Protein backbone atom coordinates (compact mmCIF):
# COMPACT_ATOMS: atom_id res chain seq x y z
CA UNK A 1 0.00 0.00 0.00
CA UNK A 2 1.43 3.32 -1.10
CA UNK A 3 -0.10 6.56 0.13
CA UNK A 4 1.04 9.92 -1.27
CA UNK A 5 0.62 12.99 0.92
CA UNK A 6 0.31 15.93 -1.45
CA UNK A 7 -1.00 19.47 -1.83
CA UNK A 8 -1.24 22.08 -4.53
CA UNK A 9 -0.17 24.83 -2.19
CA UNK A 10 3.12 24.71 -0.29
CA UNK A 11 3.14 25.05 3.48
CA UNK A 12 -0.23 23.42 4.11
CA UNK A 13 1.10 20.59 6.28
CA UNK A 14 2.27 17.70 4.08
CA UNK A 15 5.27 17.11 6.32
CA UNK A 16 3.14 17.37 9.48
CA UNK A 17 0.74 14.71 8.16
CA UNK A 18 3.46 12.47 6.65
CA UNK A 19 5.73 12.36 9.69
CA UNK A 20 2.92 11.87 12.22
CA UNK A 21 1.23 9.19 10.14
CA UNK A 22 4.60 7.43 9.88
CA UNK A 23 5.00 7.57 13.66
CA UNK A 24 1.52 6.10 14.28
CA UNK A 25 2.06 3.20 11.87
CA UNK A 26 5.52 2.58 13.34
CA UNK A 27 4.22 2.62 16.94
CA UNK A 28 1.53 0.13 15.88
CA UNK A 29 4.42 -2.23 15.09
CA UNK A 30 3.68 -2.36 11.35
CA UNK A 31 6.40 -2.28 8.70
CA UNK A 32 6.47 1.26 7.28
CA UNK A 33 8.63 3.42 5.07
CA UNK A 34 8.47 7.19 4.73
CA UNK A 35 9.93 8.59 1.51
CA UNK A 36 10.58 12.31 1.34
CA UNK A 37 9.96 13.05 -2.35
CA UNK A 38 10.15 16.83 -1.86
CA UNK A 39 13.71 16.69 -3.18
CA UNK A 40 14.10 20.43 -3.54
CA UNK A 41 13.70 20.92 0.18
CA UNK A 42 13.36 17.65 2.06
CA UNK A 43 12.65 18.10 5.78
CA UNK A 44 11.08 14.89 7.15
CA UNK A 45 14.43 14.05 8.67
CA UNK A 46 14.12 17.01 11.03
CA UNK A 47 11.29 15.17 12.81
CA UNK A 48 12.36 11.53 12.51
CA UNK A 49 15.56 10.18 14.06
CA UNK A 50 17.20 7.24 12.39
CA UNK A 51 20.58 5.64 11.79
CA UNK A 52 22.17 6.37 8.46
CA UNK A 53 22.43 3.06 6.57
CA UNK A 54 23.10 4.02 2.98
CA UNK A 55 23.62 6.92 0.62
CA UNK A 56 22.90 6.26 -3.02
CA UNK A 57 24.02 8.75 -5.65
CA UNK A 58 21.62 9.08 -8.57
CA UNK A 59 22.84 9.94 -12.04
CA UNK A 60 21.29 10.40 -15.43
CA UNK A 61 22.84 9.85 -18.83
CA UNK A 62 23.52 12.81 -21.09
CA UNK A 63 24.52 12.41 -24.76
CA UNK A 64 28.03 13.41 -25.80
CA UNK A 65 28.57 14.08 -29.48
CA UNK A 66 31.77 13.21 -31.30
CA UNK A 67 32.00 15.97 -33.89
CA UNK A 68 34.57 13.97 -35.91
CA UNK A 69 32.00 11.25 -36.55
CA UNK A 70 28.90 13.50 -36.74
CA UNK A 71 27.59 14.17 -40.26
CA UNK A 72 25.12 16.83 -39.04
CA UNK A 73 22.27 14.80 -40.56
CA UNK A 74 19.91 16.09 -37.86
CA UNK A 75 18.29 12.74 -37.10
CA UNK A 76 19.08 12.93 -33.36
CA UNK A 77 17.45 16.33 -33.19
CA UNK A 78 14.40 15.01 -35.03
CA UNK A 79 14.12 12.10 -32.56
CA UNK A 80 14.51 14.29 -29.47
CA UNK A 81 11.05 15.04 -28.13
CA UNK A 82 12.42 17.55 -25.61
CA UNK A 83 14.31 19.94 -27.90
CA UNK A 84 17.54 19.03 -26.11
CA UNK A 85 19.68 18.86 -29.27
CA UNK A 86 20.41 21.72 -31.63
CA UNK A 87 21.84 20.96 -35.09
CA UNK A 88 22.83 23.54 -37.69
CA UNK A 89 24.30 21.67 -40.68
CA UNK A 90 25.14 24.86 -42.63
CA UNK A 91 27.64 25.98 -40.01
CA UNK A 92 28.48 22.48 -38.68
CA UNK A 93 27.20 23.20 -35.23
CA UNK A 94 25.72 20.62 -32.88
CA UNK A 95 24.92 21.22 -29.22
CA UNK A 96 23.25 19.34 -26.36
CA UNK A 97 21.11 21.41 -23.98
CA UNK A 98 21.75 19.28 -20.88
CA UNK A 99 18.93 20.76 -18.80
CA UNK A 100 16.34 19.60 -21.30
CA UNK A 101 17.63 16.01 -21.63
CA UNK A 102 15.26 13.39 -20.21
CA UNK A 103 17.72 10.49 -20.58
CA UNK A 104 15.38 8.66 -22.96
CA UNK A 105 18.12 7.32 -25.25
CA UNK A 106 16.30 8.19 -28.48
CA UNK A 107 19.26 10.16 -29.89
CA UNK A 108 21.56 7.17 -29.37
CA UNK A 109 19.13 5.03 -31.29
CA UNK A 110 18.74 7.65 -34.02
CA UNK A 111 22.46 8.10 -34.77
CA UNK A 112 23.68 5.80 -37.53
CA UNK A 113 27.25 7.06 -37.42
CA UNK A 114 28.19 6.07 -33.87
CA UNK A 115 28.77 9.72 -33.03
CA UNK A 116 26.79 9.68 -29.79
CA UNK A 117 28.00 8.20 -26.51
CA UNK A 118 26.75 9.01 -23.04
CA UNK A 119 28.22 10.50 -19.89
CA UNK A 120 26.82 10.37 -16.39
CA UNK A 121 25.57 13.48 -14.67
CA UNK A 122 24.95 13.56 -10.92
CA UNK A 123 21.40 14.69 -10.25
CA UNK A 124 21.00 13.95 -6.56
CA UNK A 125 21.17 11.50 -3.71
CA UNK A 126 18.88 9.19 -1.77
CA UNK A 127 19.84 8.92 1.91
CA UNK A 128 18.41 5.95 3.76
CA UNK A 129 17.86 5.88 7.52
CA UNK A 130 16.76 2.95 9.65
CA UNK A 131 14.36 4.16 12.33
CA UNK A 132 13.77 0.74 13.88
CA UNK A 133 13.92 -2.79 12.53
CA UNK A 134 10.59 -2.45 10.74
CA UNK A 135 10.66 1.16 9.66
CA UNK A 136 12.85 3.41 7.58
CA UNK A 137 13.08 6.90 6.13
CA UNK A 138 14.38 7.66 2.65
CA UNK A 139 15.30 11.23 1.82
CA UNK A 140 15.70 12.34 -1.80
CA UNK A 141 17.78 15.47 -2.29
CA UNK A 142 18.40 17.06 -5.68
CA UNK A 143 21.70 18.67 -6.68
CA UNK A 144 21.57 22.45 -6.82
CA UNK A 145 20.92 23.62 -10.38
CA UNK A 146 19.42 20.34 -11.66
CA UNK A 147 16.35 21.11 -13.73
CA UNK A 148 14.04 18.15 -13.02
CA UNK A 149 13.70 16.02 -9.90
CA UNK A 150 11.54 13.42 -11.68
CA UNK A 151 14.25 10.73 -12.27
CA UNK A 152 15.43 11.11 -8.66
CA UNK A 153 11.89 10.75 -7.26
CA UNK A 154 11.26 7.68 -9.45
CA UNK A 155 14.43 6.07 -8.11
CA UNK A 156 13.55 6.92 -4.48
CA UNK A 157 10.12 5.28 -4.66
CA UNK A 158 11.15 2.36 -6.86
CA UNK A 159 11.12 -0.26 -4.09
CA UNK A 160 8.32 1.25 -2.01
CA UNK A 161 5.22 -0.69 -1.10
CA UNK A 162 6.61 -4.22 -1.10
CA UNK A 163 5.15 -5.68 2.07
CA UNK A 164 5.08 -2.43 3.97
CA UNK A 165 2.96 0.64 4.30
CA UNK A 166 4.68 3.35 2.25
CA UNK A 167 4.12 7.06 2.80
CA UNK A 168 5.29 9.32 -0.03
CA UNK A 169 5.69 12.95 1.08
CA UNK A 170 5.10 14.69 -2.26
CA UNK A 171 6.58 17.95 -3.55
CA UNK A 172 4.13 20.88 -3.65
CA UNK A 173 2.36 22.00 -6.80
CA UNK A 174 0.81 19.98 -9.61
CA UNK A 175 3.72 19.80 -12.05
CA UNK A 176 5.95 16.87 -13.09
CA UNK A 177 7.55 16.13 -9.65
CA UNK A 178 4.07 15.95 -8.08
CA UNK A 179 2.83 13.66 -10.85
CA UNK A 180 5.92 11.43 -10.61
CA UNK A 181 5.08 10.91 -6.92
CA UNK A 182 1.30 10.46 -7.02
CA UNK A 183 1.30 8.22 -10.11
CA UNK A 184 3.04 5.56 -7.98
CA UNK A 185 0.51 5.82 -5.13
CA UNK A 186 -2.56 3.65 -4.55
CA UNK A 187 -4.27 6.50 -2.75
CA UNK A 188 -3.57 10.21 -2.36
CA UNK A 189 -4.18 12.40 0.68
CA UNK A 190 -4.46 16.06 -0.27
CA UNK A 191 -3.62 18.42 2.55
CA UNK A 192 -5.14 21.87 2.33
CA UNK A 193 -5.93 24.87 4.49
CA UNK A 194 -9.27 26.69 4.70
CA UNK A 195 -8.13 29.86 2.92
CA UNK A 196 -8.84 31.13 -0.62
CA UNK A 197 -5.25 30.17 -1.58
CA UNK A 198 -5.68 26.70 -0.13
CA UNK A 199 -8.96 26.19 -1.97
CA UNK A 200 -7.62 27.48 -5.31
CA UNK A 201 -4.65 25.13 -5.22
CA UNK A 202 -6.77 22.24 -3.90
CA UNK A 203 -8.97 22.52 -6.97
CA UNK A 204 -5.91 22.33 -9.24
CA UNK A 205 -4.72 19.16 -7.46
CA UNK A 206 -8.20 17.61 -7.59
CA UNK A 207 -8.43 18.22 -11.35
CA UNK A 208 -4.99 16.66 -11.88
CA UNK A 209 -5.79 13.58 -9.78
CA UNK A 210 -9.13 13.12 -11.53
CA UNK A 211 -7.32 13.16 -14.85
CA UNK A 212 -4.87 10.56 -13.52
CA UNK A 213 -7.85 8.56 -12.17
CA UNK A 214 -6.30 8.35 -8.70
CA UNK A 215 -8.53 7.86 -5.66
CA UNK A 216 -8.03 10.59 -3.07
CA UNK A 217 -9.38 12.26 0.05
CA UNK A 218 -8.67 15.55 1.81
CA UNK A 219 -7.21 16.55 5.16
CA UNK A 220 -7.92 20.13 6.22
CA UNK A 221 -5.10 21.55 8.30
CA UNK A 222 -5.49 24.70 10.44
CA UNK A 223 -9.26 24.12 10.46
CA UNK A 224 -11.02 27.07 12.03
CA UNK A 225 -8.79 29.58 10.28
CA UNK A 226 -10.35 31.39 7.32
CA UNK A 227 -13.79 30.30 6.11
CA UNK A 228 -15.87 27.21 5.28
CA UNK A 229 -15.41 27.39 1.51
CA UNK A 230 -13.19 24.29 1.41
CA UNK A 231 -15.75 22.20 3.33
CA UNK A 232 -18.50 23.44 1.00
CA UNK A 233 -16.42 22.61 -2.08
CA UNK A 234 -15.77 19.06 -0.77
CA UNK A 235 -19.46 18.49 -0.03
CA UNK A 236 -20.56 19.84 -3.40
CA UNK A 237 -18.10 17.62 -5.26
CA UNK A 238 -18.62 14.58 -3.01
CA UNK A 239 -14.94 14.43 -2.02
CA UNK A 240 -14.17 12.60 1.21
CA UNK A 241 -12.95 14.70 4.13
CA UNK A 242 -10.52 12.38 5.92
CA UNK A 243 -9.61 14.55 8.90
CA UNK A 244 -9.54 18.10 10.19
CA UNK A 245 -6.51 19.26 12.15
CA UNK A 246 -7.47 22.36 14.13
CA UNK A 247 -5.67 25.70 14.04
CA UNK A 248 -3.97 25.22 17.38
CA UNK A 249 -1.01 27.11 18.82
CA UNK A 250 0.15 23.95 20.60
CA UNK A 251 0.75 22.29 17.20
CA UNK A 252 2.92 25.17 16.01
CA UNK A 253 4.89 25.14 19.28
CA UNK A 254 5.55 21.39 19.06
CA UNK A 255 6.41 21.57 15.35
CA UNK A 256 8.85 24.44 15.86
CA UNK A 257 10.80 22.25 18.29
CA UNK A 258 10.87 19.33 15.87
CA UNK A 259 8.61 17.23 18.14
CA UNK A 260 5.89 15.15 16.49
CA UNK A 261 2.42 16.12 17.74
CA UNK A 262 1.46 12.46 18.02
CA UNK A 263 4.24 12.16 20.61
CA UNK A 264 3.55 15.37 22.49
CA UNK A 265 -0.24 15.84 22.34
CA UNK A 266 -2.67 12.99 23.15
CA UNK A 267 -5.65 14.41 21.23
CA UNK A 268 -3.67 14.40 17.98
CA UNK A 269 -2.37 10.89 18.51
CA UNK A 270 -6.00 9.76 18.44
CA UNK A 271 -6.69 11.87 15.33
CA UNK A 272 -3.83 10.20 13.43
CA UNK A 273 -4.78 6.72 14.66
CA UNK A 274 -8.21 7.31 13.13
CA UNK A 275 -6.67 8.63 9.92
CA UNK A 276 -4.48 5.52 9.66
CA UNK A 277 -7.53 3.28 10.16
CA UNK A 278 -9.38 5.12 7.41
CA UNK A 279 -6.41 4.81 5.04
CA UNK A 280 -5.91 1.11 5.82
CA UNK A 281 -9.50 0.48 4.73
CA UNK A 282 -8.70 2.11 1.39
CA UNK A 283 -6.13 -0.65 0.81
CA UNK A 284 -8.62 -3.48 1.17
Amino acid at each position, binding site marked *: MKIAIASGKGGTGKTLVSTNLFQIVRKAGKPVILIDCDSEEPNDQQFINGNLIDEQLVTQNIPVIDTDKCTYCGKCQEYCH*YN*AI*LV*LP*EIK*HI*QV*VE*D*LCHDCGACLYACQYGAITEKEKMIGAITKFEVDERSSLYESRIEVGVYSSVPLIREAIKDAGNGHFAILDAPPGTSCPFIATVEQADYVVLVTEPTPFGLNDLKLSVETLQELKKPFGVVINRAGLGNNAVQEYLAENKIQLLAEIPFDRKIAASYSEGVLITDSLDEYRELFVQLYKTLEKKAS
Partner: protein
Amino acid sequence: MKIAITASENKPEAKLDSRFGRCAYFAIYDTENGSTEFIQNPNKESVEGAGPASVQLIASKGVKQIISGEFGGKVKSILESLQIQMIMFNGPEKSVDEIIKLINQN
Protein backbone atom coordinates in the same frame (compact mmCIF):
# COMPACT_ATOMS: atom_id res chain seq x y z
CA MET B 1 22.42 40.79 -42.55
CA LYS B 2 19.28 39.08 -41.34
CA ILE B 3 17.55 40.31 -38.19
CA ALA B 4 14.68 38.42 -36.57
CA ILE B 5 11.95 40.30 -34.72
CA THR B 6 9.43 38.39 -32.61
CA ALA B 7 5.96 39.32 -33.87
CA SER B 8 2.47 38.75 -32.53
CA GLU B 9 0.92 38.42 -36.03
CA ASN B 10 2.16 37.85 -39.58
CA LYS B 11 1.92 41.43 -40.86
CA PRO B 12 4.18 44.49 -40.72
CA GLU B 13 1.78 46.38 -38.41
CA ALA B 14 1.91 43.50 -35.88
CA LYS B 15 3.16 44.38 -32.39
CA LEU B 16 6.44 43.00 -31.10
CA ASP B 17 5.78 39.72 -29.27
CA SER B 18 7.52 40.12 -25.90
CA ARG B 19 8.44 36.42 -25.61
CA PHE B 20 11.25 34.89 -27.64
CA GLY B 21 10.80 31.09 -27.58
CA ARG B 22 7.01 31.15 -27.58
CA CYS B 23 6.33 34.10 -29.86
CA ALA B 24 3.63 33.69 -32.53
CA TYR B 25 5.76 34.63 -35.57
CA PHE B 26 9.31 35.56 -36.45
CA ALA B 27 9.64 38.49 -38.83
CA ILE B 28 13.00 38.08 -40.57
CA TYR B 29 14.23 41.34 -42.00
CA ASP B 30 17.06 41.30 -44.52
CA THR B 31 19.03 44.58 -44.36
CA GLU B 32 20.60 43.95 -47.77
CA ASN B 33 17.45 43.84 -49.88
CA GLY B 34 14.94 45.32 -47.41
CA SER B 35 12.63 42.29 -47.56
CA THR B 36 10.70 40.90 -44.56
CA GLU B 37 9.66 37.27 -44.31
CA PHE B 38 7.19 36.07 -41.65
CA ILE B 39 7.57 32.52 -40.32
CA GLN B 40 5.05 30.94 -37.98
CA ASN B 41 6.73 29.67 -34.81
CA PRO B 42 5.99 25.92 -34.47
CA ASN B 43 7.44 25.97 -30.94
CA LYS B 44 4.79 28.29 -29.47
CA GLU B 45 2.97 25.42 -27.73
CA SER B 46 6.03 23.23 -27.01
CA VAL B 47 5.87 21.50 -23.64
CA GLU B 48 9.57 22.09 -23.05
CA GLY B 49 12.52 23.64 -24.79
CA ALA B 50 10.66 26.22 -26.88
CA GLY B 51 13.64 28.57 -26.56
CA PRO B 52 16.40 26.27 -27.90
CA ALA B 53 14.07 25.00 -30.65
CA SER B 54 13.38 28.58 -31.71
CA VAL B 55 17.11 29.31 -31.79
CA GLN B 56 17.50 26.29 -34.08
CA LEU B 57 14.79 27.70 -36.34
CA ILE B 58 16.11 31.25 -36.68
CA ALA B 59 19.78 30.20 -36.82
CA SER B 60 18.99 27.86 -39.72
CA LYS B 61 17.64 30.92 -41.56
CA GLY B 62 20.99 32.67 -41.13
CA VAL B 63 19.80 35.26 -38.62
CA LYS B 64 22.60 37.23 -36.89
CA GLN B 65 20.57 39.49 -34.59
CA ILE B 66 17.36 38.86 -32.71
CA ILE B 67 15.06 41.50 -31.26
CA SER B 68 12.57 40.50 -28.59
CA GLY B 69 11.24 41.54 -25.19
CA GLU B 70 12.55 38.62 -23.13
CA PHE B 71 15.06 35.81 -23.53
CA GLY B 72 14.91 32.69 -21.34
CA GLY B 73 17.88 31.42 -19.34
CA LYS B 74 18.68 28.43 -21.55
CA VAL B 75 18.70 30.47 -24.73
CA LYS B 76 21.28 33.10 -23.78
CA SER B 77 24.31 30.80 -23.70
CA ILE B 78 23.27 29.07 -26.93
CA LEU B 79 22.86 32.38 -28.76
CA GLU B 80 26.24 33.52 -27.44
CA SER B 81 27.95 30.35 -28.70
CA LEU B 82 26.34 30.89 -32.12
CA GLN B 83 27.37 34.55 -32.03
CA ILE B 84 23.81 35.70 -32.57
CA GLN B 85 23.27 39.03 -30.87
CA MET B 86 20.29 39.44 -28.53
CA ILE B 87 18.60 42.82 -28.43
CA MET B 88 16.06 43.34 -25.67
CA PHE B 89 13.36 45.77 -26.61
CA ASN B 90 11.56 47.03 -23.52
CA GLY B 91 10.44 50.47 -24.63
CA PRO B 92 6.85 51.55 -25.40
CA GLU B 93 4.96 49.03 -27.53
CA LYS B 94 6.22 49.11 -31.12
CA SER B 95 5.18 47.34 -34.28
CA VAL B 96 7.45 45.34 -36.59
CA ASP B 97 7.54 48.06 -39.27
CA GLU B 98 8.33 50.73 -36.66
CA ILE B 99 11.24 48.62 -35.38
CA ILE B 100 12.52 48.15 -38.95
CA LYS B 101 12.42 51.93 -39.36
CA LEU B 102 14.51 52.30 -36.20
CA ILE B 103 17.03 49.75 -37.53
CA ASN B 104 17.41 51.75 -40.75
CA GLN B 105 17.85 55.04 -38.92
CA ASN B 106 20.84 53.66 -37.00
